[in-house]
């Protein structure tokens, strides 16, 4: 949505290096519960994984030029439908989580068709309103959904005793989801999306069906959002509208933008930086948001393209080359 073209090209690093780094990262993550026994840190890691799934799917939709500002609401659809199905009808969460994800995807596809008529700003606005409408509907049916206080008592996957099985579950979920989205992004389909983003006219002229691709990617994005939300609700044993309202969506967008929109790893880094790191200076208690805001300002003022672009920025400074912003000023 900005006037500047954001590059969504493949990073210039050698693909093999990337693969090794990712594999090493996963191994390190898998070993965390072995070394760290604090349930609080495990909890933070689990939530980070949930947000990683959500932000990566958000970015996937953003690569097609859409700004789906209703993402947290779709997480809510997955979460609430999974929660209500398993709580009121007694279905096993293993069944309701995929169902919740599919319902979210269904709704995404359903609105994707009419929404795909709109571009950039207007699309963002209808997404905002639709998302807010979903949240209000959830609150309005308070008799079934627990209203603004939230829904509690949702059945869990592994019982409430230990968090460790949840950690591995979410790790596996995140790895599989990110892998799927990675393969989608760096495939013909992903190239189609980027083409649509860069110029929908030219993309249309070479036969890329803009509406169909946009709807498909929105469906995929909403599927993973619903998945993340449903799994979260089963883990948390409760879900409330404050987790899924407009502010939550904006923070998801924040994680993506601060991490870096142009790189696949951007949302992951952004989530870690903006969600995980603040948990460790929680000791500031009520002053915590100030530090987060300070981090936000530092990043947006000095590293406009996101944290992911930091190595390139440093390299440019060292070599004495000017950044694009300096050239244009």
């Amino acid at each position, binding site marked *: *949505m*900005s*006037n*500047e073209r*954001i590059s969504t090209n493949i990073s210039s690093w050698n693909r093999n290096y990337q693969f090794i780094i990712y594999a090493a990262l996963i191994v390190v993550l898998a070993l965390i519960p072995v070394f760290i026994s604090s349930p609080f840190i495990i909890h933070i890691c689990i939530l980070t994984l949930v947000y990683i799934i959500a932000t990566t799917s958000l970015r996937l939709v953003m690569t097609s030029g859409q700004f789906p500002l209703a993402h947290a609401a779709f997480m809510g659809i997955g979460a609430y439908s999974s929660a209500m199905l398993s709580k009121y009808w007694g279905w096993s969460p293993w069944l309701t989580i995929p169902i919740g994800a599919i319902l979210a995807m269904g709704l995404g596809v359903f609105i994707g068709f*009419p*929404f795909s*008529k*709109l571009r950039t*700003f*207007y699309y963002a*606005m*209808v997404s*905002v*309103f*639709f998302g*807010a*409408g979903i949240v*209000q*509907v959830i*609150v*309005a049916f*308070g008799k079934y959904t627990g*209203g*603004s206080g939230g829904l509690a008592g949702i059945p869990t996957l592994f019982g409430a005793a230990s968090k460790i099985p949840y950690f591995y579950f979410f790790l596996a979920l995140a790895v599989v989801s990110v892998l799927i989205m990675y393969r989608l992004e760096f495939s013909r389909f992903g190239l189609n999306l980027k083409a649509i983003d860069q110029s929908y006219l030219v993309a249309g002229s070479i036969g890329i069906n803009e509406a169909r691709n946009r709807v498909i990617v929105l469906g995929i994005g909403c599927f993973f959002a619903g998945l993340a939300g449903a799994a979260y609700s089963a883990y948390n044993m409760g879900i409330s509208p404050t987790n899924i*309202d*407009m*502010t939550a969506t*904006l*923070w998801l*967008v*924040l994680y993506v*933008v*601060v991490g870096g*929109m142009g790189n696949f790893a951007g949302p992951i880094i952004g989530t870690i930086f903006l969600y995980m790191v603040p948990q460790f200076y929680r000791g500031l208690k*009520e*002053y915590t*948001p*100030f530090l*987060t*805001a300070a981090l*936000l*300002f530092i*990043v*947006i*003022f000095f590293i*406009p393209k996101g944290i992911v672009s930091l190595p390139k920025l440093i390299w440019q400074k060292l070599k004495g080359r000017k950044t694009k912003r300096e050239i244009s000023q």
Partner: protein
Amino acid sequence: MTSLSLILTTGVNSIILSSMYILLALGFAFLFSIMGILNFAHGVIYMVSAFLCLKFTLLLGMNPWLALVCTVIIVAIFGVLLERFIFRRFYGDMNGTIVACLGIIAVLQNSVVITEGYVVEKIPEFAHGFMRIGAFSVSWERIVTLLVGVILLVLVLLFINRTKQGQQMQAIAQDTEGAIFQGISIHGIAALACIIAFSLAAVSGSLMGSYLSFSPYMGDNITMKILQILVLGGIGSINGILYAGLILGTLDASLPIFVNAAAAQAIVLFVIVVILLFRPKGLFGREV
């Protein structure tokens, strides 16, 4: 309450809500059309003004009107500083705007939460007593709010259309480069726009603060309303904002009578979505 008095009360409420919404949306539209910035933080400014006014009247024991004026002055200065140091960097840059505004929201909301806690209070009234017409009574408070809102609205509209600065603003909104060629100072007019926009938000916040009880998080709701008005009315059209504000104010005042508050919000939001699907430019929108 007879149905006639219900209708009259609802009518008064809807005009009050409409005028407040329109004031806020106009300020927001100034910022958007002149600087290309979607000021997500506008609702938070509204909330902060309400709290400032509260502090002035309660702690310093000021007359509410004096507190209103002081609040407006402080918020306007704050707006100029914001424009100079933060917004100027992000003219036309949507991503940066979102991040910067969220940072501003976090800082301001948290400051209010720290100093105020979650206690919900009301500002002492600007005017006391009730006005009665037959069986129907409405507090002077609301009449005053209504009058101030409408007068300010008329003043702002006159400003835009009749004064030199107002026409300069219109010029910048229509074609920024052309305006620069004509010698219009973008930064100066942007500062003026900020002053006006933030002052309008401050007035709305202070007035509504005595009308509704409030919390540090009421700004989010207001920002959503502002966006609805702006998009429904159409970008680049003042008439659109007036009509859309009127429609939304009326809906917000009348729907909660029939359904509960959340359902009313949901209905309004979905209606707007449907309207936008058929007419993306909004009711009166011109340009993209």
